[in-house]
């Protein structure tokens, strides 16, 4: 009984704020904290707010590009780390892949910003801060997460499957595409979704490397909140929560181990 109560308290602690936020997104009142009856008018306002819609579209583009690029690069890194046990600089490489996982985002963001400025002065690219710089920065930190997810799947995979394919006459590249890739596909999908979620949520790194005309959704929300909370933000947040929730649930499904043949 006491255990159940504790559990309920724990869940309340975690999810009550989110539930409240969702409920207040259907509030008819202009004041966020005063209940004025049920309404969906803030969703309508949201739909006509071009600034927010543009930002959402930009965030979506950034997230898709980031997730795709991070999945390709992260998978390559994982394959190198798992299949090539010994090569010079392996420890350094593996450490550098893992570093962004533990690096404070503020530092990553600041470092990226300094790099972009230095590069612009040195080679003239990237000119200014834009979607390009956001995408590059996002790929950098998402890649590590993809690597970790794919790596764990590769380690579990029976290496004699690849050896059998080689033995039967398939060349190494073909083995990778016909045997390895299909077998680790669930991890790739999970990695993609994870990268997508991380990118679409990110505010700190984006804030550092963004420029005029390239405002992502979390940055819009953040700046709107600073001017005073409007119920429109609640509606927006509810939409974001829904999207992220669905993505996480899908990632969970892909990550679940399946019976291996």
């Amino acid at each position, binding site marked *: 009984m006491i255990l159940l109560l504790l559990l309920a308290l724990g869940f309340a602690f975690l999810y009550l704020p989110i539930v409240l936020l969702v409920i207040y997104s259907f509030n008819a009142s202009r004041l966020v904290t005063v209940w004025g009856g049920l309404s969906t008018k803030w969703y309508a306002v949201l739909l006509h707010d071009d600034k927010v819609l543009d930002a959402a579209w930009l965030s979506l583009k950034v997230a898709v590009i980031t997730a795709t690029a991070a999945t390709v690069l992260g998978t390559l890194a994982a394959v190198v780390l798992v299949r090539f046990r010994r090569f010079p600089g392996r420890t350094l490489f593996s450490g550098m892949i893992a570093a962004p996982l533990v690096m404070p985002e503020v530092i990553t963001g600041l470092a990226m910003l300094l790099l972009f400025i230095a590069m612009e002065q040195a080679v003239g690219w990237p000119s200014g801060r834009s979607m390009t710089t956001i995408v590059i920065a996002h790929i950098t930190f998402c890649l590590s997460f993809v690597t970790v997810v794919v790596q764990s799947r590769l380690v579990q995979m*029976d290496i*004699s*499957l690849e*050896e*059998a*394919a*080689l*033995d*039967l*006459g*398939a*060349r190494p590249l*073909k083995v990778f595409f016909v*045997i390895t890739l*299909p*077998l680790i596909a669930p991890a790739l999908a999970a990695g993609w979704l994870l990268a997508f979620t991380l990118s679409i949520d990110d505010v700190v790194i984006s804030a550092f490397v963004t420029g005029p005309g390239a405002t992502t959704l979390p940055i819009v929300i953040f700046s709107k909140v600073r001017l005073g909370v409007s119920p429109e933000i609640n509606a927006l947040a509810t939409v974001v929560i829904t999207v992220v929730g669905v993505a996480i649930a899908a990632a969970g499904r892909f990550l679940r181990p399946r*019976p*291996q*043949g």
Partner: protein
Amino acid sequence: MAETIISIDAVSKSFGSFAAVNRLSLSIHRGEFFSLLGASGCGKTTLLRMLAGLEQPSEGRIVIDGTDMTGVPPYLRPVNMMFQSYALFPHMTVEQNVAFGLRQEGWPKDRIRDKVQEMLDLVQMAPFGRRKPAQLSGGQRQRVALARSLAKEPKVLLLDEPLAALDKKLREQTRLELVKIQHRVGITFIMVTHDQEEAMTMSSRIAVMKAGSIEQIGAPVEIYEYPASIFVADFIGAANMFEGSISRHHDSQVMVACPDLGRDVAVTHAPPLPVGAAVKVMVRPEKLLLSRDEPGAQMNWLRGRIGDMAYLGGLSAYHIELASGLSVQATQANLKHVDGGGPSSGDEVYVAWHPANAVVLVQ
């Protein structure tokens, strides 16, 4: 002499400072069923993987059917391997698994279909072509793995512990079946196993390996009856060994003085050794005869008392304690019903064997 299909020439393989295979030379004949037998870690699997091209030798040369295989990758070698875990591709059906090797060679579709059908018929798996490996039993997976590795008609099939994953009963059935299939397809089989019974029943020749080298190569009969070393005698089957030294040569026989037995023992099979050389006399338990009466003069015999005995159905196993405290193992076929006066625990008996049934091994 049989034609050589594989010759392994002074091959070594080391992993760091550990020498898995140590200057090993061996030739394998076309069409034979050859077994590499040894305990785990003796280098037998490493040797097999070098034949497949999955490992490269640190030194030495492997020639397959007249072609030097040094530096040739696995996908260009005329050999195929059946893996211990079977390594069936879980995302492909049985048919797709068997067809995999043929597709790599770019066979036309209808020929692939016919060949896959033929291979599945060979291993009696034709009704299961559309299943995925996860939907098959262990024995069925083993058959599919065999069909897949035979589909490309390799010059040599390498089998890494092909029966280890099966339960005991199925394992024994599969032994004979594997030999039958080998006869039918006429391909040279090289099998790695740690199970001496498996090697004995299936192979035409066996190489017993120890610590990266070959201890003895020969037909199962030779290896069992005339082991070349104490290690082989001990590894294959059960053995009684008596320490001694050569006392004299007598006609075709060698006399060995065994202090533990308190007498000289005559042995027909002995390597050429000088008088005084320290040796062991090895006699298999089933070569010993138990009797109540003193055996004839041409036999070697000892007196002892039966200690433990075990009734094993077709056989009975006895431990006979000698006056010196040494214990000797003997097995006797139960030709008659045992309840009628056979030797039993506590009986004083003579243990006898013919000089031709023992072997002298160098210590």
